[in-house]
């Protein structure tokens, strides 16, 4: 009698235990596959992002080269050609005025070459850091007369890795170019502040954009500059926000502190 009662229970227990053991093994295999698939997907996504950044960086480099070539050809080339024309005259008949004009044209060319060289790699940025380079950038913008720009510092920002400083510098440069080109702004303020992050705030009275417009434009083929801003900020783990407060547009750029 006892045998009859125990036997089925015993068999069920054994089968249940076997099923449980196989279940645990299957769970381990399937879970492991899922995790590996997830990891591979993440790696693929990162690789795609890196490729995108690389593409954008190559494209921006090409555009920069094109712009420099154009600047050298149209400005420096034309000025030097004029100087050559003045100096091409007969040596005995050359006037003092012609020499003075030629000298002025050559000086202009030199200054333009210096400007191109500065744009390529600003010395202030390398030697004195981002804060001084941005101050210098605002000074040059003011001198151009296109906009009335002011520079304010609430707290000095620390020096960062050179690549990070260059990326942030290029971001601000691109933002300022966009403001002067498209926003029709007459006044602009660049403010630097520091708390848990470095804060770069640009306020202007022109036609700005919202976060949504920025996202939309940066995805369009025309928004190469905005795409570069995004990519450069991604490299330095930075963030950007576009706000409109009353009649002023604000662009906030947040950069993590160097030790983070």
């Amino acid at each position: 009698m006892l045998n009859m009662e125990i036997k089925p229970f015993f068999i069920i227990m054994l089968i249940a235990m076997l099923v449980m053991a196989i279940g645990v093994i299957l769970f381990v295999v399937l879970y492991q596959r899922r995790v590996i698939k997830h990891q591979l997907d993440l790696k693929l996504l990162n690789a795609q992002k890196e490729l995108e950044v690389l593409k954008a960086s190559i494209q921006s480099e090409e555009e920069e080269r094109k712009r420099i070539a154009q600047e050298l050809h149209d400005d420096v080339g034309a000025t030097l050609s004029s100087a050559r024309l003045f100096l091409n005259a007969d040596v005995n008949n050359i006037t003092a005025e012609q020499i003075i004009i030629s000298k002025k044209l050559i000086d202009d060319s030199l200054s333009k070459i210096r400007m191109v060289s500065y744009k390529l790699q600003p010395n202030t940025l390398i030697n004195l850091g981002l804060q001084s380079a941005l101050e210098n950038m605002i000074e040059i913008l003011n001198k151009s007369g296109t906009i009335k720009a002011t520079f304010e510092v609430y707290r000095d920002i620390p020096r960062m890795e050179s690549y990070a400083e260059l990326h942030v510098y290029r971001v601000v440069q691109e933002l300022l170019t966009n403001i002067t080109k498209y926003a029709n702004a007459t006044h602009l303020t660049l403010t630097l502040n520091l708390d848990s992050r470095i804060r770069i705030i640009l306020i202007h009275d022109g036609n700005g954009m919202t976060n949504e417009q920025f996202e939309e434009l940066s995805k369009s083929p025309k928004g190469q500059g905005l795409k570069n801003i995004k990519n450069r900020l991604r490299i330095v783990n930075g963030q950007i926000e576009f706000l409109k407060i009353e009649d002023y547009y604000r662009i906030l750029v947040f950069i993590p502190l160097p030790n983070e």
Partner: protein
Amino acid sequence: MKVYFNQNIQWAGNLFLALEIFFFAAFFINFLAAKPRWFYWLITFLLLFWFLYEGAESRFMVFNRFGASVLCITYSVLCLISYWRILRLQNYHFIEQSGAFWIISGVFIYASTSSIVFALPEILKDETAFNVNVWWYFYILINIIRYVLIGIGLRLYAKYGD
């Protein structure tokens, strides 16, 4: 036909279990990177001592089912910890190519089911209450699966390492 354990060969089962303790101790201590090693080897020797003490009463001539059941439960727990380690470390891109995984799976299938096979008759304390055939054939089947899986594991271990 009913098959009963031949009392004369039960000492071989005891000896085999005692030797098995060393094999699994070496495997798990190595796989789980358990430190300090001397501490886990001490536990292994204490377990062995306890197993021998349990069987000494019958002069090792009767298979020590209670001891075997305790060992199987210990191995099952170690296998679960090993699975947890495999999932946590994520070192294996192809888990099927890991010798350790197959060895652990073989041990786990054997240990988790055999613990019941060994424990139930011991708990019931009634040798006539169950049919020896049932657990004997089941035990053989589980052992075949175990050795096949451990064999695959050792082959992979030799081929790829772990």
